[in-house]
């Protein structure tokens, strides 16, 4: 257990906030190098507040998280990179195991590395995970009775849409009367066309 470090379950190291005072010092009026600013008292108390806030993480309870040690076998790392892109982190559900900084994701990556090292195939590892976390851990849902609608619904909608489209076109076509013009109508049409300026009639 010599890799034990503390980090929040959310991921980002807590100490990041502590680069803030140096940033503030260069920005806050009265904190210029000469020390004779317009409002030095405000500057000092502000800085003190920020520094005190920086101490807070020291009192925060943290999750125990072993540091992630990549495998020395590049094949395993490659397989992990590939496989973890298809698995969901259950803590931050819209992230893959590959992207998630959550503690659980790191634990699962460690477990996958161990199993790969032990010679387990990708399918065996996926089976191991789904036995514990369910199909939800898979980004690509399985084709089962409950996911039929998900997989085939779009095609049903497409076919339905096509049916409605054809039906509509056919109905429109039927609406246009297929009656030939009478002799009188024909003559009037000829006259109208002839009256158009610059148009020759046949």
């Amino acid at each position, binding site marked *: *257990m010599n890799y034990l470090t*503390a980090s929040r*379950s959310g991921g980002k190291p807590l100490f990041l906030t502590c680069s803030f005072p140096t940033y503030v010092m260069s920005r806050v009026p009265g904190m210029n190098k000469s020390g004779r600013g317009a409002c030095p008292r405000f500057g000092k108390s502000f800085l003190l507040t920020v520094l005190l806030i920086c101490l807070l993480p020291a009192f*925060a*309870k*943290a*999750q*125990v*998280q*072993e540091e992630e040690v990549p495998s020395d076998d590049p094949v395993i790392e490659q397989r992990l990179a590939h496989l973890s892109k298809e698995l969901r982190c*259950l*803590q931050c*559900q819209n992230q893959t195991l590959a992207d998630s900084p959550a*503690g*659980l994701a790191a*634990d*699962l990556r460690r*477990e996958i590395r161990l199993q790969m090292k032990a010679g387990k195939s990708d399918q065996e590892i996926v089976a191991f995970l*789904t*036995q*514990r*976390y*369910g199909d*939800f851990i898979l980004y690509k849902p399985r084709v089962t009775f409950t996911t039929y609608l998900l997989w085939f619904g779009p095609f049903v909608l497409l076919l339905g849409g096509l049916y409605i489209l054809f039906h509509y076109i056919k109905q429109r076509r039927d609406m246009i009367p297929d009656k030939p013009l009478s002799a009188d109508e024909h003559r009037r049409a000829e006259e109208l066309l002839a009256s158009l300026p610059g148009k020759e009639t046949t």
Partner: protein
Amino acid sequence: MLKYLIPLVIFLVLAGFLAIGLTRDPHELKSVLINKPAPAFRVAELKAPEKMISNEDMRGKVWLLNVWASWCVACREEHPYLLKYAESKVVPIYGLNYKDRREDALAWLGELGDPYTASAVDLDGRVGIDYGVYGAPETYVIDQAGMIRLKHVGPIMPDVWSEKILPVVQELNRQGAAK
């Protein structure tokens, strides 16, 4: 008439689905371990680390496994209720101290009280993986034969206790007594 009814019907169906969707918690996933044997563990006990604790030790009785940690904010929320439930002696509550520092965990129990018959230590979260833990607190109801009968994710507030957990525990106890 139909022309105006169809959009209304489509709207109502859609609104219905969305309304149901709003009431559901996407973080609450159905456990695949329901009615399956509780995964085996054998780890150190929190208060007596030289002793090992295993799920087999609880065989023959109905028990709760409550996943907790001192860093878990929602665990603090359920803690006073857990103390009350433990005091009622309806069912023994065992803890799974999940990815916690030992001194933090002991300080938490010292400060807030210890509702657990015993707590198993899961330092690296490996037991948690076997149980499909994805967020503390989680609580499992395990029967006499060592089968998981119910899983609840989130704090066990009084309504969850009386409507979800207690009925299952009482039913299992009744079945156990009938045998």
